[in-house]
């Protein structure tokens, strides 16, 4: 029996006395007496399955990209994915501009913002919402337009966010219509 199965099936170490039928009995004991253990193990296995299917099931990568861009169909769909770790997932890039996308800005001076399309490890929307990104990009209280882009094995999601200032660095986040 593989080591990891023996650990569950014959946990006491005294189980070796019974050669036949030990595993099912012990496994049943674990199942019966420790629902929490089974539930957590099932959750871990379900997430691992979800992850392993990601490269071959486009809908899974798509759901994760929408999660990264804060564009899941509802907050509940976003929330349902929170236990799934997402460190350094996908090729995510962000661009921050002080004029709307497509606007010819040759007549306007560029503000001191990061306007290069740089890679970011995960959750590219954090460039607008999180800590340092929020401070660097929004501290002067001017409107900003964020372009988020995530790529995964041929799939791409592009999102445009408008951080509209309502006064005294009080912003409202507006999602531009999906292109």
């Amino acid at each position, binding site marked *: 029996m*593989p*080591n*990891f199965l023996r*650990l*569950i099936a014959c*946990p*006491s*170490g005294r189980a070796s006395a019974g050669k036949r039928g030990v595993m099912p009995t012990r496994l049943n004991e674990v199942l019966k*007496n*420790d629902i*929490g*253990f089974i539930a*957590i*193990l099932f959750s*871990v296995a379900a*997430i*691992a399955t979800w*992850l*392993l299917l*990601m*490269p071959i099931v486009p809908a899974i990568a798509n759901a994760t990209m929408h999660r990264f861009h*804060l564009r899941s169909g509802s*907050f509940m769909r976003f*929330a349902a994915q*929170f*236990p*799934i*770790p*997402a*460190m*350094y*997932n*996908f*090729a995510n890039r962000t661009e921050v501009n002080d004029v709307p996308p497509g606007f010819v800005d040759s007549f306007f001076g560029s503000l001191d913002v990061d306007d290069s399309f740089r*890679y*970011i*490890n*995960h*959750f590219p*929307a*954090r460039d*607008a*919402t*999180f*800590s*340092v990104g*929020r*401070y660097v990009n*929004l*501290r002067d209280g001017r409107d900003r337009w964020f372009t988020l882009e995530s*790529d*995964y*094995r041929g799939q791409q999601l592009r999102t445009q966010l408008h*951080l509209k200032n*309502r006064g005294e*660095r*009080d*912003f*409202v*986040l507006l999602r531009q219509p999906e292109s």
Partner: protein
Amino acid sequence: MIASPKLSRRVDLAYRIVQVCLLLSLVWKYEFFYQSIQVYGYITIDDVFFPRILRSDSVLVGSFAAVVISSLLCILIRNRVVRNLGSFVSLFGLTVLCLHQGSYNDATFTTGWWTSLWSWWFVSRMNCDDAEVLLRKGAFLARCMISMILLAGAVGKWTPEYWSGEVLHDIYFVDRNFWTFNWLRDRYDAEALREIATTYSRFIIITETIFGLTLWMLPARIAAILAIILLTSIALFSNFLLFSVLLSLIGLAAVGLFAKT
């Protein structure tokens, strides 16, 4: 089943190590969190995607404080009721932190959440299972969680931009102020750095994939030692701030050191 005092002490020690690591992971970036809260007070963002309660700075601060205090109490007080309640509060607080507008993206809280889930289960079994059984099950569950978290990192990188090293080159090699990358920039030109970034990125993808797929199957102590070495080296060679993400996993991995295989 009554455990021997020695075994009980091992169970208690394993539990406390996990709690200490969870606590350290949260306070590791205390200054960063403190400054973040100041930024959120200075610059507010109204995003209706998040429920109002999950945009509140008070909720963010309260949840963080609740997790820190409850973890501390679980370390200091050896009482099952306190620990049960403390683990539940930690789990609840970390759930809030994983969903809050100001912290949803921080992996510290994701790894902390899994650690709290493990802790809540572990405490619930302290008076039910034989100590040796509990340590074996605890170690198995811990390495399943670590495997899954490493697998998540690997799968997300199974993409041409990571395999070519393009992403990590941009994030780390271009201008990241950290000893490894400063040292490399001092010694190699841009072309060589790009090649190093490719090797570095592929090494990470392969390592995470192998560990993600196999760690859970290894004997407890071997898995514990390998996981601790891997997780520690990720932070030492990439970014010290990553200890906030990895310390709670290091604590979980350490449970394997107490289990007999």
